[in-house]
């Protein structure tokens, strides 16, 4: 094989490699926690499909119309910028519903902006050694307040959850963990001396302006593998009521695959835009035509 042939084969293989990688990245769903494109056990596809949710995959800086008809569900695993927080505050103030799901305390940034009425405790895990699903790290929440939001709920199963610290009487606690629960600070699964014992608030709400903010100390209860356990789905249905649901995916912590896929999807969407696609098709057709003409010229066809 001549060196020219080798080069062309190399080029061909690189192109094939890049296309294959691109297709793999595009069609293998990213296994990112809480991602609505993740159909595996740790994804959010089921809840997203069932609630017919709109995905937010850009910063929440855009104006939100008709806030009283919208529920935003957010898992704020990455930091919000000030503009986003202001936008969220205006959204709730004007009648919107915000559901904050967090088990690490990342949401405290948002909660501080809303008046610091409630805090999510970080670096600890709620363990219920008695009322649980399989083991204490999957605690069953069975104590609910007298509130229409949790009226028909008997049990909600959490997964490696945290707890809430209520700082203001303005907050209404909707659910508590059982008196057998405790905060496992050293994560050994045993209630050691000095570790706080329950019940702990785990679901709470407070009003802000004419809207309402729900704070739930575990985002995992809506995972594909968790949503049909207990009354988990019923709970989220109660909270969203009949409003249209927006799920914030922008503030999730993705992986490389997720990020690359996001960019590829953006590029593909851009290429398929009605204003762009005709030009792309024209360029593609022209290049094929040029190739055919070159081949014909080589063969001496005039």
């Amino acid at each position: 094989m001549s060196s020219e042939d080798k080069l062309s084969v190399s080029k061909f293989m690189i192109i094939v490699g890049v296309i294959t990688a691109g297709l793999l990245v595009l069609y293998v769903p990213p296994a990112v926690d809480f991602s609505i494109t993740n159909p595996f056990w740790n994804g959010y596809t089921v809840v997203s499909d069932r609630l017919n949710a709109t995905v937010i995959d850009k910063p929440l800086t855009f104006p939100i119309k008709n806030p009283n008809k919208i529920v935003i569900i957010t898992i704020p695993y990455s930091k919000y910028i000030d503009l986003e927080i202001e936008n969220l505050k205006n959204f709730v103030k004007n009648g919107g519903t915000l559901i904050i799901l967090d088990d690490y305390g990342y949401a405290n940034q948002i909660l501080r902006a809303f008046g610091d009425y409630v805090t999510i405790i970080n670096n600890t895990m709620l363990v219920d050694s008695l009322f649980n699903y399989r083991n204490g790290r999957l605690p069953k929440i069975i104590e609910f307040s007298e509130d229409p939001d949790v009226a028909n709920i008997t049990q909600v199963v959490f997964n490696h959850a945290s707890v809430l610290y209520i700082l203001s009487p303005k907050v209404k606690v909707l659910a508590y963990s059982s008196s057998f629960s405790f905060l496992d600070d050293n994560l050994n699964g045993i209630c050691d001396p000095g570790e706080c014992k329950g019940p702990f608030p785990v679901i709470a709400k407070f009003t802000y302006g004419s809207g309402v903010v729900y704070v739930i100390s575990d985002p995992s209860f809506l995972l594909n593998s968790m949503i049909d356990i207990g009354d988990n789905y019923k709970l989220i249905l109660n909270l969203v009521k009949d409003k249209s649901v927006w799920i914030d995916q922008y503030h999730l912590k993705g992986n490389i695959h997720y990020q690359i896929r996001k960019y590829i999807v953006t590029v593909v969407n851009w290429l398929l835009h009605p204003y762009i696609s005709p030009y792309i098709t024209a360029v593609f057709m022209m290049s094929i035509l040029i190739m055919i003409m070159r081949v014909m010229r080589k063969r001496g066809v005039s």
Partner: protein
Amino acid sequence: MVKLCSTILLLLLLISILTPYIPIYGEISPHERPDTASTELDPVSLSSFYVLLFRAALGTENLNLTSLTLLFKYVGLPSEILYIVNRLNNLILKVYSEINQTSILLERAKLLIEFKVYDEAYEVLDKARLHLYNANKTSFEIELAINELRSRLEKYIVNPNDPRLVNTSEEIRDSINRLHELINELLNKLYKLSYEAESGINEQAPWLLTTFISIHTNVTEIKVGRDIEVYGQLYCAKEPLPNRKIDIISPFANLSVFTDEDGYYRAIIHVFNYYRPKATIDVFYKPTGEDRNHFRSAHNKTTINVLYIKTRLIVDAPKFVYPGLPAYVSVLIFPWFSGVSRKVAIYIDNETLFDGYVNSSKSSFKLFINDTTTIGPHVLKVYVYPYMEYSDAMYISILTVTYKGIILAVDVDNSFVVYPLGKFNVYGRVMDVDGNPLVNETIEIKVANRVYLLSTNLNGEFNVSIDAPFTFGDCYITVTFKPVEKWYPIVSKQVKVTVMNVTSSIVVIVFLVGMLFFFRRYPIRLPKIPVQKPKPYITYKPKYTATTSKVDTIKSFINKWVIFKGIGRIIPIYKAVVEKISSVVGLPKPSDTIREYYRRVESHIKPVKDEFWKLTLYTEYELYSGKQVKESMIEEATKLKEVILRVFRR
């Protein structure tokens, strides 16, 4: 190139797909897969729950046994435990029911014996005996079930000596003992009543005439708050017994009436404070006076349906309240009849906070939580007294007394100060969680050993200028909010300032300079190391014999030492050192490597053994590495040589 690109691409893909399975969030995993999650059981918690269950069954705690048992459906139990737990729960419920039944029947038998209706009392006691027998049998079955459960739990027990496990096991054992004691008490009572009934039967003369009493009511259903008419006839051998005393025992009232000339009796009973669907009215004829020699006692009963309206109560109470601050509790009572007043009582830990009347269905109460109330959970009880046909109602919940959150912001204007003239300001603000400034509150600032006490101004702010403390380096200033009000917690925050202590720096510098001058003038003379005569370490005698002088012999031997095959830059240094050491300690063997030589002389050259070891290594490097030695190594080797030779010179 192509292969490399493809491999990198595939690796990137693999890593990116695997990344979510690697915990990146922190120490705690965000979740685990529920369908493959390990099934775990905490025997301590399960035992604690059984302790509660037994307390409820024995009535030692105000808990509802049935509702507690229902909670078991939420308990995470492995399948191998499930059967025995269900069986144990059923047995506990059964023993509870049997004991209750026995108690009720014994009470009834006691009443019948009181009115000398011995035959019927005997029948009732027979029934009680059967229930008690079942209770006793079940209690032993419970013991067996507990032992079985304990054996099945063994594999889940991590630490059998866990004090919590030991305590709960002991408490369960105590509960079982108390259960046996309770059954024994009931058995004693049963024996006593049976004896009384039997004695009564035996004492009754056989010639006494049997009497009969009938009982009727004007209605079969009665509303609470209304009157019911009870009537009937007392007779003996179809002959009415006039002017005889009849005792009517009912849950509403106990009264006595006399029969008329035709043996009829009639009484009006006011139905009140009774909110159960059925009520039994008993009538007794107990012969007195001369009748005791002629007639036997008589008893009859009837059951009526009681109509009442169940009062429902919804209480909206905060879960968290603050010591010294009012708590607002709203009470909704329904159904509500307009124009009435209902009596309501509110208690916290059995201490009455309100006891009075409300005039509307929905009422709000401002309750003052005592500022001495301890932080932690307390029991809130709301009780609505019954009114006419409206039943009473009770609400119990846990009220957590806690501190009200505050925000303490503290900062310093200058985080680097110079002692003694430097100053810095500590300033901050104290607010409640709603952003309201906390005015005239005490702030304590501790800097080193000094304490400053300040008060917050109208904006909740404080500010103090502090002289730089006498420390060096980082100094932590502790700012403590010490509230007057009990509902605020004591909160401390620390801020850091770095202190440049000029005084101590000058003192240190002066001291060092002084030391320098002192030692230059009076240098330290190290004590002379006594020359020790080295022990000969080898029996080997070189075949080279001294011809001119000892030094010549050693030099010539070392030059012929087999290991030195070339000439380098460190080797001559090493040779010079070995010449010196050999002259004192002894010659190396021709077959020795330089490392072996070191080992041999190590114990004899203790003051310089490290230096000689380092030199040995450098020499080895030059001999065997095949690399060019660095200049720094040569310099170092020269220094080492000087050190070693200096010591040997001494």
